[in-house]
């Protein structure tokens, strides 16, 4: 009887959660032991991961609660948010989803696939999924917490205390951001662990192993090429723009920015196309740091202009700073690569000159297709079609920067949720926060898709006047649809420029392809996305919240 009473008092006492957690962890470890005995190592790994993340979550929560032990209003509100977060049903569902996602992802991978792709898949989906889940969790938590306080009138008791309204909002934001920090850290630790476990499994071949070690689980700086005669190149582009302006002044005046961009894209495309009758030279500079390693990586994604050609038959010759490469027994060897696939050539750094410059010259050695008289041109599309990569650091440090960028984005999402909840009811606040998040997420795509309307030039005011005049002209000609379309496009463009763009900081994409997330970019993201926009949104939310009546009439 006494034992039962004692057990009950423990369960109702301050250590109830410690007892429950210890029981759950003990049971999980016992099951893991059974799995190991039975030889189900994959299931054992998965369950260990889930348990580890859950334990990390509990320990981290205790750490954050300790961090917020200070006697300030903001810390008090933030701590209450943390307590609320782990008890909110929607948050709990997303939290469980997160804890299950990362350990179970390796189980769904196709084991016949190349290890390189499996590791990339795990990285992209684990961190991409984490970003999405945490963004939704953040929005629901921010809106649920503040709107819940208002709707349940709890806020009356809180704001009757000596707490400024801005402190209340800042406390909510801080609590959510710290909760996100914990979950981002957990997801990062889980991802790093499972990626390393996966990377230890056998690769398809040596090339696959090299790709995993040197192209995925690494951090590489990417250098884009410049033209070998930049003056002539720029002059040619300027001349082409002038010609277009003279030939079609009305068309050009409608959207000069878009016309200039189109001409440049055409020239860049031509420059990246290696025709059979001429060689193309690409200059990569700033490679002094790259010389410490024996090789740098030349990434190519060649495509041929004839779709009928054999996909494996893209052949070309390479000169490095004017010297043929590679040489075998005194003979200059051609390179053969599959088209439309990413290939990497390891170039010796001894070819890089003292100023850190490497000029790469390519000559087309394609075979002549049947029925043709000359070989097909090879295009290396600007962007990821041709770039030079060299190792700058390790995977774990890159992962840390990637997680920092993710956290900054979540700080913005939290601010959007807090600001929306400070102004609106729960459902409309969630909707508004989701719209801001969706805009931030899809801003890159939207900018490209609406590029036709991208008319904001150097002078915003002049552009506004030009646009209004052009729209009025269309209206006078009774072309109302076109006038409305033009104005709508302009407004969209301005909105897109004002709203934050997550696409500018695609850290997960970089990490999964072994590209360095530069520290400078992470800092910029922290300053703009993590602090600037949240501050702006916070001030907007506070301006409304400070004037808002937090009581509804009873009648």
């Amino acid at each position, binding site marked *: 009887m006494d034992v039962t009473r004692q057990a009950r008092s423990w369960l*109702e*006492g*301050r250590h*109830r959660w410690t007892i429950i957690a210890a029981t759950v962890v003990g049971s999980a470890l016992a099951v893991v032991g059974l799995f190991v005995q039975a030889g189900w190592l994959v299931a054992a790994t998965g369950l260990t991961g889930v348990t580890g993340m859950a334990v990390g979550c509990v320990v981290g929560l205790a750490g954050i609660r300790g961090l917020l*032990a200070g*006697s*300030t*209003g903001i*810390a*008090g*509100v933030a*701590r*209450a948010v943390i*307590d*609320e977060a782990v*008890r909110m049903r929607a948050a709990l569902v997303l939290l469980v989803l997160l804890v299950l996602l990362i350990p179970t992802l390796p189980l769904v991978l196709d084991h016949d696939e190349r290890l390189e792709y499996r590791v990339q898949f795990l990285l992209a989906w684990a961190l991409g999924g984490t970003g999405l889940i945490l963004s939704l969790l953040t929005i629901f938590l921010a809106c649920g917490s503040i709107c819940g306080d208002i709707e*349940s*009138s*709890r*806020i*009356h*008791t*809180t*704001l*009757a*205390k*000596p*707490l*400024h309204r801005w402190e209340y909002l800042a406390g909510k934001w801080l609590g959510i951001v710290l909760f996100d920090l914990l979950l981002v850290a957990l997801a990062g630790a889980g991802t790093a662990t499972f990626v390393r476990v996966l990377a230890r499994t056998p690769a398809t071949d040596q090339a696959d192993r090299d790709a995993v070690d040197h192209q995925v689980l690494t951090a590489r700086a990417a250098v884009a090429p410049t033209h070998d005669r930049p003056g002539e190149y720029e002059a040619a582009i300027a001349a082409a723009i002038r010609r277009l302006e003279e030939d079609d002044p009305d068309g050009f005046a409608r959207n000069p920015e878009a016309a200039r961009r189109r001409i440049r894209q055409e020239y860049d495309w031509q420059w990246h196309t290696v025709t059979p009758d001429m060689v193309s030279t690409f200059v990569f500079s700033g490679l002094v740091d790259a010389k410490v390693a024996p090789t740098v990586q030349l990434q190519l994604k060649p495509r041929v202009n004839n779709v009928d050609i054999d996909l494996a038959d893209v052949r070309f010759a390479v000169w490095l700073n004017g010297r043929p490469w590679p040489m075998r027994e005194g003979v200059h060897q051609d390179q053969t690569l599959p088209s439309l696939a990413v290939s990497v050539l390891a170039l010796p750094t001894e070819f890089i000159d003292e100023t850190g410059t490497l000029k790469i010259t390519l000559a087309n050695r394609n075979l002549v297709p049947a029925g043709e008289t000359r070989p097909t041109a090879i295009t290396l599309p600007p962007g990821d079609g041709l770039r030079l990569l060299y190792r700058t650091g390790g995977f774990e440090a890159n992962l840390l920067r990637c997680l920092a960028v993710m956290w900054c984005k979540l700080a913005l999402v939290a601010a959007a949720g807090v600001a929306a909840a400070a102004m609106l009811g729960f459902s409309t606040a969630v909707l508004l926060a989701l719209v801001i998040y969706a805009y931030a997420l899809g801003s890159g795509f939207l900018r490209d898709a609406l590029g036709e309307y991208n008319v904001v030039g150097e002078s915003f005011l002049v552009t506004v006047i030009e646009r209004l005049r052009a729209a009025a002209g269309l209206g006078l000609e009774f072309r109302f649809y076109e006038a409305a379309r033009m104005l709508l496009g302009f407004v969209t463009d301005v909105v897109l420029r004002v709203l934050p763009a997550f696409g500018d900081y695609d850290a997960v994409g970089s990490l999964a392809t072994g590209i360095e997330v530069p520290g400078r970019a992470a800092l910029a993201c922290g300053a703009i996305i993590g602090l600037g926009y949240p501050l702006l949104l916070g001030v907007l939310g506070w301006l409304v919240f400070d*004037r808002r*009546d*937090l*009581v*509804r*009439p*009873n*009648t």
Partner: protein
Amino acid sequence: MNAAEGIDVKCVGVTKTFRDFWMRPRVRAVEAVDLEIRRGQIYGLLGPNGSGKSTTIKMLLGLLTPTSGRIAVLGRRPRDVAAKRHVGYLPEESYLYRFLSARETLDYYGRLFRMPRAVRAERTARLLEMVGLEAVEHRPVGEFSKGMQRRVGLAQALINDPQLLILDEPTSGMDPVAARQIKDLIADLGRRGKTVLLCTHQLSDVEDLCDRVAIMFGGRVRAEGTCDDLLVQEALTTIQTDALPEGVVTEIRGLLARHGIDHCDVTRPRRRMESLFLEIVERARVEGLQTSGARSGGRVADFLRGDPATAASVATGPGAVEEAEADTAAQGPAPAAGVDAGLIDSLTRRS
């Protein structure tokens, strides 16, 4: 007149109109209300549902902005956190975080007053003991009965030892023993110079406790004054003696008739149900019978009794200066230093 001159709450011509989404006036909840509550008064705000009591209270707390009129609380604007440091508020419902335990709840609100940890812990323990919840202090508030939640609500309202205590239906949902205890506490606080604004439907509470009363209806103050002013019937006289034999009663009636007084009711006074109930419970307690759940509250927390020894013993942390200030305020002179002179001037001019 300001807080230094003994007025803790002053409203002049306060009106509140709620507007809809399109900013059209929807409900005029409070209209041209004037209130003046002096230091140490227990002031009753009475009125039926929808009469504007809660709206008035929420304007005093800075949760609502008046559409017109001016308000001073402890000589400052209601939104001023310097004033809120000395205000305690018990809302009409228990607006608490259901997932926090009773102890965590008090710790949370203590934190909002920037109290050092040691002071918070000390006061939390004393208050939990006072409201009889120390045995269930680790249970989430959401699992509590309404009465137990009210006790937590009362404890959080007292955590800062407020100079001005605003209580909205403090005895709602409580058993008569707890209700009596709260009434005793309110009377005790009043004796210590604390100001209490009591908003209630329990007319007996008001009669027992309040120095002054305002009765609201339709958003306006319809009557205001001391309980005696409002309740004493000048046209009647009551004489209370030991029980009289029938013959004496007849003689008295005859005497009154000779003085031209025809109306004379002779009745046996009844005890109040509250005192009977409390007597029975006290007898049962002496006999050692126990109830489950919250027990009856303990003694009033030391810091609320103005015990200088306790105040000195807790005011040792980093926030000791602030605490000492709060305690000083509680014991006598108003927190008058730093009152908003402009606001006071404008109120004085208006009144």
